Each structure stands twice: as C-alpha cells, then as structure tokens.
C-alpha cells in the first residue's frame, strides 16, 4: 500500500512538473508579449510619455478622447464601423441560405465566394483604392450616365462609407462560409415541421432557422466586430491613411498615428486601452442581446 501510494505521489509530482514545463513556453510568450505590455500600456496611458520621459498626467489622455476633435472622430468612426456589421451580415446570410438549397454548382459557388478570403488587407485595400479611384471602375458607371463621379477616397464625407463598404465586402466570403457551416448543423425535422404547419419561407427563417443558428450568428457578430475594430490597420493604411484629415481614422489607426507618426506614446497607449475597452463592451453587448433573443 505504502509503496503504491509513494509511486502514485511521485507520478503526480512528475506529472505536475511536466505540466509546468510543457506549458511554460506558451505562458512566457503570452506573458511577455501580451500581459506585460498590457500593464505597461495601462500605466503609460496616464502619462505624456514621448519615448524618453513619462510625466504623470492623470486622466488627461482619456479626457482627450472626447475633447480632441481628431480622437473623438476616431472613436465615432470605430463605432460606425461596428454599427455597420449587423447590416453587413445580411448578404452573407442570404447567400448562405440560397447556397444551402440544393442548387446546381453550389460547391463551385461556395469555393468562389470563399476565395477572396485568401487576400490580405493590404491587397484588399489596393483593389479598393483602384475601384474607388477618380477614373476607376466605379466612376466608369457614373460616366455611363454622363456624370464624372466623385473622388471617393479624397472626399471627407464619402471616404468613410467607402472604407466601411470595403471592409464589409471583404469579410462577406468568410462569413457566408461560417453561416453555411451553421445551416448544416440545423436539425431538418424542426424545419419540416414548420413547413407542414404552413409557415411561409421568411417565417421559417426568422422563427426556426435563425434561433437554431444563434451561436453561429453570435460568433460571426463578435468576430466581425473585433476585426472591424482591431484588424484593419493595413486596409486603412493603403486606402486612405486615415484621411482625408481624420475622416477615416479609427481608434486602431489613431494609435499608429499618435504614437509612431507624432511620438505621442502616452496618448497612443490611452487610445489603445480605450480601443480594448470599447471592443470588450461591444462583445458584452452582443452577448447580452443574443441571450435576450433566445429567451423569447
């Protein structure tokens, strides 16, 4: 008995030691490249750190998020980006829905719709830059009707809609595929029952299919909002550089502009922390909204 106990104990000790050693590299990597800099950023966000000195300035940087017109604009733009997401998900859902019907060529269509996901935000941004150019493909449609068309990306009221459109167009393919995966998980008998009850197609979609896909809709909403807030620096960099002025500046891009373009590292840190908080709030709001709907 005693021997078995000791053997088990030494096994547990060895197992624990190995557990620590096997997880150590990942923990160190996350700790030093994410945890530590997060704490540093939180600290520097209360200073006017310029790369050399970091005098403490209290809440100034955060108040500037509301007082500084450029930063206020970046906050509003980021919120507009997030607000565009639910609307931007209509097309992927409709496409997934029709692809899920037994139509000829659906495998090929699915592959083609997914294909642009292979392109980076730099490449997407370049294609969009050409699409919206003064003599680009979009304006050639305007020319058909005898108008010259605006200079989309240089116009301070049109640039943001153009950039938001490009973002939603670029994530259309991947979201269609995720919705398709969700549709494939639905138990067909519930839908057949609704059909037999004489429900119309849109009734089946709203009352049966969407609730059954709740987790997928929530996942797509969250992932898309996160990437709109934190993943499109490159697209904005090549499309507009945040301009004209600050017309297409997002919080994410403002970090770059404040910190690395003008040396305001303390201000940049505060923008970064604000970005994280806004993103977390948005995720929380989506979770809450989705829970309410499922209870209905």
């Amino acid at each position: 008995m005693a021997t078995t106990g000791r053997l088990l104990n030494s096994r547990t000790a060895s197992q624990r030691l190995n557990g620590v050693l096997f997880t150590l590299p990942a923990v160190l990597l996350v700790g030093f490249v994410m945890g530590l800099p997060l704490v540093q950023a939180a600290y520097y966000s209360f200073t006017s750190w310029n790369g050399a000195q970091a005098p403490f300035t209290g809440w100034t940087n955060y108040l500037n998020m509301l007082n500084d017109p450029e930063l206020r604009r970046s906050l509003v733009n980021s919120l507009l980006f997030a607000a565009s997401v639910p609307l931007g998900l209509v097309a992927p859902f409709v496409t997934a829905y029709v692809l899920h019907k037994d139509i000829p060529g659906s495998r090929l269509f699915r592959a083609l719709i997914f294909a642009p996901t292979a392109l980076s935000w730099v490449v997407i941004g370049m294609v969009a830059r050409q699409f919206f150019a003064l003599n680009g493909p979009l304006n050639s449609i305007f020319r058909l009707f005898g108008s010259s068309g605006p200079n989309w990306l240089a116009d301070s009221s049109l640039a943001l809609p153009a950039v938001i459109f490009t973002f939603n167009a670029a994530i259309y393919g991947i979201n269609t595929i995720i919705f398709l995966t969700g549709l494939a998980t639905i138990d067909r008998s519930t839908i057949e029952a609704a059909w037999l009850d004489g429900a119309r197609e849109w009734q089946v979609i709203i009352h049966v299919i969407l609730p059954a896909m709740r987790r997928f809709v929530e996942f797509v909403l969250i992932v898309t909002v996160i990437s709109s807030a934190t993943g499109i620096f490159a697209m904005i960099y090549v499309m507009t550089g945040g301009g004209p002025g600050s017309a297409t500046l997002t919080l994410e891009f403002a970090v770059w502009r404040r910190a690395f373009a003008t040396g305001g590292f303390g201000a940049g840190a505060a923008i970064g922390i604000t970005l994280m908080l806004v993103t977390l709030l948005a995720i929380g709001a989506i979770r809450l909204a989705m829970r309410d709907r499922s209870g209905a």
Partner: protein
Amino acid sequence: MTDIVAASAPSTALSGGRRTAFLIAAAAAIVSLYPFGSLILTSIKPPLNGSWFGLWTQLFTSLPVATYMLNSALVSGGAMILVSIVSCMAGYGFAKLPYPGSKVLLGIVVAALSIPQATTIIANYFNFAAVGGVGSYWGAILMYAAGATPFSTVLMTNFFRSLPDELVESAIIDGASYRQVFIWILAPLAGPAVTTIAVLCFLGSWNDLLVGLLWLPDPGQRTISVGIASLVGVRASNLDLILTGSLFSALPPILAFIVFQRYLVSGIVSGIGK
C-alpha cells in the same frame, strides 16, 4: 449535401424559388471574383507606351521583390514553426498534465485572445527595442508567434482533451516518460490540428503590415506586404504597378489557401463549440 428547405418544398428540377436561389448564388460567385479579375487584368494589360506583361517586367526590375518575398517567408515560416511547437506542447500540458494553477493560466491565455494588437504594440515596440529585437528577424517572429499563441493554444488544448486520458496513463504505466508520450503518441495524432494552427499563423504573419512596418524598417529586411504598401504615396501615380506587386505578394497565401482550405474552415469555426 443535405437540403433542409427544399426537402419538403416541391423539388421539381428548378422550381421558382430554386431558380432565384441559383441566380443569387451565381451572381455572388461572379462578384466574388472581382478582386482577382481586377488584379490579373491590371497586371497583364499594357501600361502607357508599354507592352503586355510590361508591368511584371517593371516590377522585377524596379523593386527587390525576391528579397521581400524571402523576408516574408522567413518571418512567417519562423513564426509558424514556433507557434506550432509552443501551442502543441502547451495544449498537451493544459489538457493532460494539470497542475495547481494550470486552470488559471489557461484562463489567462484565453483572456489574451481579447487584447487587441494595437493596445500592446507601443510597449512591445519599446521592450523589443531595448533588447535588440527591433530591426531583427527574431523580433518579428516572436511578435507573430505570440499573437497566434492564444488561439492556437486553446485549439490544441481542446484537441488534446478530446483524446482519452488512458492513452497517456497506459503508456506511463508501461514505463514511458511524459515527454516520450508526447513525442511518440500524442503529437503524431495532432497532425490535422497542428496543420490548422500552422496555416492560420502563416497567413496571418504573411498578410501582416503593422509589425512588419515597425519591426523590420530596414529595406533589406522588408517584408513583401510592407514593400507593396510603402509604394502608396511614393508612386501614387502608378497604381497599376502596385496592383501587380499586390498580386505577386498574394500568390503564396492563395496557394496555401487552396491546399489547406478545409483546415481553415474547421479552425475558424472551432471557437463555436464552447
């Protein structure tokens, strides 16, 4: 291919609803080809006073694109290998070798998923600069690998949890060490899961711009994304050349995408199960 909706609806060859569905799907597929069509047509059409494919010649003679591509391959490949090893090990540790505090650490790794890169980029830049990691490949590799580690570790932990504990225990009773169990029994089973995280890390690193801009500013170390993006503004007039370069830069990810497509979808939706 199961079909939910048409199952109980009349399913004659192409009924009205299905014809509309076909037309919508076909239109969507054609529109999705727009970026590829735009890139390819722009790159092969003759520029002013030039010849067909003149832009490609111009691209290779005016820019060190081969160097850029090699730099991208080096940092993306390095990050991909590093994150595969690190996440595979951590997944094994978290799933099969629990220790006091391991749950908390896994929770921290999961929480790190929601830290935006832009939030930590400034502090990271100065930390890396202090130890010589800015301006060197290893700095960029560590940045990319760390960025991919939380997601990859969670995915690998879920994967190893799905394997029975007896797999480990019986081998340990037979006298194997925990390291041997990992190398000879569990890691070989993890092929598909590791492929998923490796491809996602490769695509993410290859397509990145921000870390490349900051960590590898030297023209000789420049990645292809940075090389292409930095042409904007410098030669704003020659958008066609930039698009040709963009297409060239996209060839490796497109190839990886075609080969590993099924791993990508399974990896991306793996977060939904929880």
